[in-house]
C-alpha cells in the first residue's frame, strides 16, 4: 500500500500559496520563502522510488519449554535501496522480548540482506502464532510511504514445565502388560503374594524350603506380577476462574502434564479427556509419543463458552477403559462437570478428583452484603466437596502456590482410608 504523507500535501500547499502570493503581492521575498519548500518537494519526490524488499520471519526453535528462550529473525532482502524501513513484529501474549529492538527502523542498501534478531522468552505455555510482521518503508524525506505485512507467521509451541512427581496415585486395577504397578493377581514377579502346596509343573526355584520343612511337604511361593495400568486424565474446561493473567485452567494443564509424564514414565497407558465447551479425547497410549500427543492436546485446550449439556456417554468407550483410574482436575465451577464426575463414579470407575481451587483467583468483596454472599458461595463449595466424598470420590483442594504432591497425597490418604 502506497500512501502520501501529510508532509507532501503540506509542502505542496506552502509552495502553491507562496508562489501565488508572490505573484499577487509582487514580493520577491515570498519566492525566497517558498523556493526551499519547492526544492524539498522536488528532491523528495525524485528520490521516492518504490522499493523492493522481501520480508520473511524465521524462528530458531518452534518447540520449547516454559521459561526457555528462542530467537526469532525478521529477514529483509532488499533488491533496491530503502532509506528507512520500519519493522514491527507483533508478539502474542505469553511471549516477551528480552533482547533486540521491536519495533525498529533500519536502512537497507540495494542488494543487502539484514536479519533483525529478537530474543523471546516464553513466559506462558501455549500454541503461539508469531506476527504478523508489519513493514513500512519511507523515502529519504518522508513524503511517501509504502506499507505491507509479511505473510510468514511461524508457530511456536511452548510446553508447560512439568514437576517431577516421586509418588502418584496407585491404580486399583492393572492391565496385562508389564509395568511398575504391583498387580493383585498372582503370577511371575518379585513381590510375595502367598504360599500354596506344590503342584506338578511348578518350578523348583519357587519352592519355599523353609515353609516346606516346617509343614513336611513342598510349598511354593506365589508372587504378584508387575503390570501397567490405564490412567485417564480428565481436564474440566467448561469454566475457569482467572485473575491477572493466570487461572485455574493454567494450573490444571500444568498438573495434567506433570501427571502424564509421571504415569508414562511408569510404563502405564495414559489417555486424556478435555471435557468442556470443546470436547476432546485421546485414547490411552504409552511412551514418549503419547506424552507429546497429550501435551499438544493440552496446549489447544481453552475455555469455550457453551450451554450444551454434555453427558459422559458422548465419550467413546475405548477412551474410558472400565478398569482405568480416572484422575480429574477441575475447579468444580460448572454443574455439568460435577454431574459427569458423579456419573463416572456411579458407573464404577476408580475416580479421584483434585479440585483446582478458584478461591485464590477471587477477591473477597468489601461490601458487607457481598461478603455474606461470598461466604455462602464458599460454604456451597464445601458442601459440593462433601457430596463427592459421600459418593466415594476422594477430593482434595489444591490452591495456587501449594505444592501439587501435597494435594495428591491427600487424595491417596482418602483412598487408603476408604479401602481400609
Amino acid at each position, binding site marked *: 500500500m502506497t500512501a502520501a504523507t501529510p508532509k507532501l500535501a503540506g509542502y505542496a500547499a506552502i509552495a502553491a500559496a507562496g508562489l501565488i502570493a508572490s505573484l499577487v503581492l509582487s514580493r520577491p521575498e515570498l519566492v525566497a520563502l517558498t523556493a526551499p519548500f519547492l526544492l524539498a518537494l522536488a528532491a523528495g519526490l525524485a528520490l521516492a*522510488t518504490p*522499493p523492493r*524488499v522481501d520480508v520473511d520471519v*524465521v524462528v530458531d526453535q518452534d518447540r520449547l519449554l516454559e521459561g526457555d528462550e528462542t530467537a526469532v529473525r525478521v529477514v529483509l532482502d532488499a533488491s*533496491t535501496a530503502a532509506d528507512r524501513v520500519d519493522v514491527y513484529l507483533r508478539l502474542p501474549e505469553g511471549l516477551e522480548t528480552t533482547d533486540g529492538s521491536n519495533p525498529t527502523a533500519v536502512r537497507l542498501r540495494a542488494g543487502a540482506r539484514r536479519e533483525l534478531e529478537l530474543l523471546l522468552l516464553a513466559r506462558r505455555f501455549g500454541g503461539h502464532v508469531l506476527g504478523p510482521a508489519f513493514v513500512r518503508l519511507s523515502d529519504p*524525506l518522508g513524503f511517501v510511504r509504502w506499507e505491507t505485512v509479511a505473510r510468514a507467521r511461524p508457530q511456536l509451541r511452548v510446553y508447560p514445565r512439568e514437576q517431577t512427581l516421586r509418588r502418584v496415585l496407585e491404580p486399583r486395577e492393572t492391565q496385562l502388560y508389564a509395568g511398575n504397578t504391583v498387580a493383585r493377581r498372582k503370577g511371575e514377579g518379585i513381590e510375595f503374594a502367598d504360599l500354596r502346596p506344590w503342584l506338578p509343573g511348578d518350578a523348583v526355584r519357587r519352592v519355599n524350603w523353609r515353609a516346606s520343612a516346617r509343614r513336611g511337604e513342598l510349598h511354593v511361593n506365589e508372587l504378584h506380577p508387575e503390570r501397567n495400568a490405564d490412567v485417564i486424565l480428565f481436564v474440566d474446561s467448561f469454566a475457569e476462574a482467572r485473575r491477572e493473567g493466570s487461572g485455574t485452567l493454567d494450573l490444571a494443564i500444568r498438573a495434567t502434564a506433570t501427571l502424564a509424564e509421571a504415569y508414562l514414565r511408569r510404563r502405564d497407558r495414559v489417555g486424556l479427556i478435555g471435557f468442556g465447551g470443546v470436547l476432546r479425547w485421546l485414547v490411552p497410549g504409552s511412551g514418549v509419543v503419547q506424552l507429546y500427543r497429550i501435551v499438544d492436546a493440552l496446549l489447544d485446550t481453552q475455555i469455550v463458552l457453551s450451554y450444551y449439556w454434555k453427558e459422559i456417554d458422548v465419550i467413546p468407550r475405548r477412551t474410558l477403559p472400565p478398569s482405568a483410574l480416572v484422575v480429574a482436575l477441575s475447579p468444580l465451577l460448572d454443574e455439568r462437570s460435577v454431574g459427569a464426575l458423579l456419573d463416572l463414579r456411579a458407573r464404577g470407575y476408580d475416580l479421584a478428583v483434585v479440585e483446582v481451587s478458584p478461591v485464590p483467583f477471587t477477591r473477597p468483596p468489601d461490601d458487607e452484603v457481598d461478603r455474606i454472599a461470598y461466604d455462602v458461595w464458599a460454604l456451597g463449595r464445601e458442601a459440593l466437596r462433601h457430596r463427592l466424598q459421600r459418593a466415594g470420590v476422594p477430593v482434595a483442594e489444591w490452591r495456587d502456590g501449594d505444592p501439587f504432591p501435597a494435594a495428591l497425597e491427600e487424595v491417596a490418604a482418602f483412598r487408603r482410608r476408604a479401602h481400609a
Partner: protein
Amino acid sequence: MDAIAVTAGGRFALLEETAAAASLLALAAGLARRRSGAVPWAVLLAATAYLAGRAGRSAVDGRAVAVGVLLLLAAELATWSADEHPRIRPEREVVVRRLLLVAALAAASLVVDVLLLAASSVSTGGGTALATIGTGAAVAALAVALRSTRRSGGGPSPTVEAARRPTD
C-alpha cells in the same frame, strides 16, 4: 523567523504579532500531539507574520534568504519529530543520513534563494514573475535529474513484496 517578524514593526504590528504567536502555538500543538499536519500551518502563519512586518517597505529584504532556509529547517525537523514514533528505535545510520539530507537541502536552498533574490533585485518590472517562473523551472529540472539518477541506480520500478515463508 517569528522573532524577525515581531521586531520588524510596521503598520500591521498586531497582525504580525498574532500570526507569530499562532505559528508558535500551531507548531507546539503539532509536536505535542505528534501531528505533522500542523507544521505547514505553522509555516504559513510564520510567513504571514514576516509579510505583515514587511508591509509598506519596497526594498527587497535580504533576510528573506535566512527566513526561507530557517522555515525549511524548522518544518523539516518538526515533521521528522512528529512522525517519529517514540517506541521505534531507529539505527544511527538512519538518523545520520536524514540529518545530512536536511543539511544538504538547507545549503541548496540557501544558494537558490541568494541567486533568486539577486536576480529579482536586478531585473525591473516583471522581476517577481520571472523569478517565480524561473524557480519552478529550475526545480522541475532538478527533479527530473534526480529521478533519472535514482532510476538508473535502482533498476525497474517494482512494488514491495512480502515473501511467503517456504513450507516445510
